């Protein structure tokens, strides 16, 4: 089998931190090569280096048996590598055919575009690929997996030899994923290779021939998928346990503060039932396709909750909206603070007080004295550095930003905290601080729900863990019986 990509001993560091160490990878023609690893293991960096977006410190790249001296994006695209990013980029106002042919529409001899012919040709090409859509429709009408297939078709049409897919199935359900996989497998016959990045390990076994395991910037080698099973793969992916947090006091209360009963939402989750006691930390883990994200949004009121009951302190909640949730005592820490967590350009103290304006103001006039005091209090409690309540929130480090948002949640005197990936993008030291803080909240009888895919971290802090798989709850376990492998396996492939 001819080799298409060969990278050797790639090393890269960013501001003193080594992100990739001696990583090598070989991809052959007609091969689908998976890449797995935790967030932060180095997957994106490696792909960026292959695409020429950034340059490695050391290491050699060979493509199609030619050494690549100075990779840059345009060059790599020309040579035949295409990246299909997780957030697909399309020309939204144009038709499918125009997206396919962008920059080079089929023209007649007078250099005029013959639209009938354009659509016919596009339809033909897509049909041969295995994508059956009418190329004259607006690309916005395509579903997500169809857009992915279109991106791949475009790459194939431009004679790409290697296509990198970055988490293409994160938002797809089972049916859509299967359609996509059939499509991808078809392309193999055309001598095209794929690099397939994913967190959903089951898929690796479904579609990949080989898989590269990245752990903390190191390569644990490329293995034949046939020689592995999910257990073995999970074991390979276990990395160093740095600064492991240890829970000090587990919850012993039994009074419910929050319960969910048969929550069902069309297309996303069904019969979700669980409860949380006062002072209990419940962890829920689930992949992107499990419906976990939509469940959290539904509980908080950012999206529809569907049918079923939500109770806080035995009181039923109806017509949820973020405002009502906060009033009822439910607060939410988003998983992407840059997108919807930080109120940019505003100072720390305003970011903290934004949810409790009603309580620190009289006749709508904010009491600055109270606001300052509350902010100072939180800065001390949460050890926010630098302790400047007037500093713009954008100027703080990631960990401190997250702490500030915790401060915002805490001042509302909540009964339940929904934490969505609470330590994502946070440096190691701040992580420990935050876990400590979470435990402190728990010990003041607040119920905590942590939604995350970092099972190691969940095990360190939770009283109980629930696993969601394919839109249902499939497993529940108490802290005494926590088993990393079992939980991971269940999250990845169900029972």
């Amino acid at each position, binding site marked *: 089998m001819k080799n298409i990509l060969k990278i050797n001993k790639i090393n890269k560091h960013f501001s003193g931190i080594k992100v990739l160490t001696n990583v090598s990878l070989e991809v052959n023609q007609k091969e689908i090569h998976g890449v797995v690893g935790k967030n932060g293991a180095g997957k994106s960096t490696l792909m960026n280096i292959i695409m020429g977006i950034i340059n490695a410190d050391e290491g050699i790249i060979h493509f199609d048996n030619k050494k690549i001296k100075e990779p840059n994006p345009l060059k790599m695209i020309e040579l035949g590598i295409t990246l299909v990013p997780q957030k697909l980029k399309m020309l939204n106002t144009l038709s499918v055919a125009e997206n396919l042919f962008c920059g080079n529409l089929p023209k007649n001899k007078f250099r005029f575009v013959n639209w009938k012919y354009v659509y016919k040709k596009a339809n033909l090409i897509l049909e041969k690929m295995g994508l059956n859509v009418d190329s004259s429709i607006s690309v916005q009408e395509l579903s997500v997996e169809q857009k992915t297939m279109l991106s791949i078709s475009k790459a194939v049409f431009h004679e790409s030899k290697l296509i990198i897919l970055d988490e293409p199935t994160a938002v797809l359900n089972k049916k859509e994923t299967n359609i996509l996989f059939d499509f991808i497998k078809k392309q193999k016959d055309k001598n095209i290779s794929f690099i397939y990045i994913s967190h959903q390990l089951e898929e690796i076994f479904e579609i990949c021939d080989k898989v590269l395991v990245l752990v903390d910037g190191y390569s644990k080698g490329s293995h034949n998928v046939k020689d592995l099973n999910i257990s073995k793969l999970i074991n390979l992916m276990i990395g160093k346990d740095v600064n492991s947090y240890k829970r000090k006091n587990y919850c012993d209360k039994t009074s419910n503060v929050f319960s969910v009963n048969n929550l069902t939402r069309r297309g996303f989750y069904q019969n979700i039932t669980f409860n949380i006691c006062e002072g209990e930390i419940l962890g829920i883990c689930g992949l992107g396709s499990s419906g976990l994200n939509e469940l959290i949004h539904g509980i908080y009121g*950012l999206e529809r909750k569907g049918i079923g009951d939500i109770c806080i302190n035995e009181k039923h909640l109806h017509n949820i909206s*973020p*405002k009502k949730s*906060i009033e009822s005592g439910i607060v939410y820490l*988003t998983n992407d603070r840059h997108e919807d967590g*930080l109120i940019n350009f505003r100072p720390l103290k305003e970011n903290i007080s*934004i*949810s409790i304006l009603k309580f620190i103001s009289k006749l709508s006039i904010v009491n600055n004295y109270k606001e300052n005091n509350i902010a100072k209090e939180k800065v001390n409690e949460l050890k926010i550095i630098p302790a400047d309540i007037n500093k713009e929130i954008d100027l703080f480090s990631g960990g401190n930003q997250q702490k500030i948002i915790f401060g915002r949640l805490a001042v509302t005197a909540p009964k339940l905290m929904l934490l969505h990936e609470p330590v994502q993008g946070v440096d190691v030291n701040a992580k420990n601080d935050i876990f400590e803080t979470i435990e402190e909240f728990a010990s003041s009888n607040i119920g905590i729900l942590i939604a995350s895919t970092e099972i190691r971290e969940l095990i360190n802090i939770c009283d109980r863990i629930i696993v969601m798989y394919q839109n249902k709850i499939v497993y529940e376990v108490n802290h005494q019986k926590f088993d990393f492998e079992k939980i991971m396996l269940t999250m990845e492939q169900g029972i």
Partner: protein
Amino acid sequence: MNHLAKYFIWYVLLITFVCFSIFIPNFFSFSNSKNILIGGSVLGILVIGQSLCLFSRNLDLSAEGTVSLVTVIAAWLMLPATESTFAQAGGLGIELHPIIVILIMLSLGAVIGFINGYLIAYIGMNFFIVTLAMQLVLRGSGFVIGEGAVMPGTPKLFNFLGGGQLWHIPMPILASFTMFLLFNYFVKSTTIGRKIFSVGSNQKASITVGIDYKKTVLIVYSLSGMLAAFAGWMLLGKLEISVPNLGAELTLNVVAAAVIGGVSLKGGEGSLIGALAGVLLLAVINNALNIMNVDPFWVNAVRGFIILVALIIDAQKSRLFKTI
């Protein structure tokens, strides 16, 4: 360094004023300074309204149309009916009491703003097109009611805001400064003020923390409309005559003054005190150009230059001041 960044515009204002005082004869005098302030008053009121919109990451292109319409309606309601000539028209003839008319003006401004805000926040229409179209509607309506003619002779009580004096200080100056102080306090210290900034800097985050985004935008535009009406009251009172299309071309000057004063087009940033400095700077420059009897050529060139500089600084601001 932060102090410099924050009060930069005031230093520019000071330097400009000093330079003009030195190099331009007749510039530096008590009466001229009064003229500067009076000249900037109406602009100032409009800048407050526009700044509120900008804080929430919106723009109100219809403010000058509101000025136009409410001044025409006010004159129409207050003036006696006279024989209309081609250039001059009389009022409706009901000679409504000025205080009632003022209330009507302010309410009308608020209603116009409310409609803008509703279409933008609740229906989801683009703010540029909505306020642009509204501008056409308002300007045209003003022409219709006023028959495109001037209406002179507004009553004294009405003119007080625009032309009267209190403690020897011209009312426009007093009124606009008061409004600036009032609204500055409003945006800095009220809950709604916080919400306005929040919504402008990160809409999604604001919704997540429980802020009613739609209601906030609605309030912002309603205030902008009401302030535009207030500006109209002041302007009409000053001129004592209703002129067709009053307030034309102010929009770009208003936006320029706000942006020079540190109000960012991207929302969530800036202050009204800064905007005040922007207004004063523009007023000083306009006054200087006037005194020097400058060719319209230079007037336009200077205006264009100022707007250009303001917008460039705003675009570069994230780079310029964050690294300090």
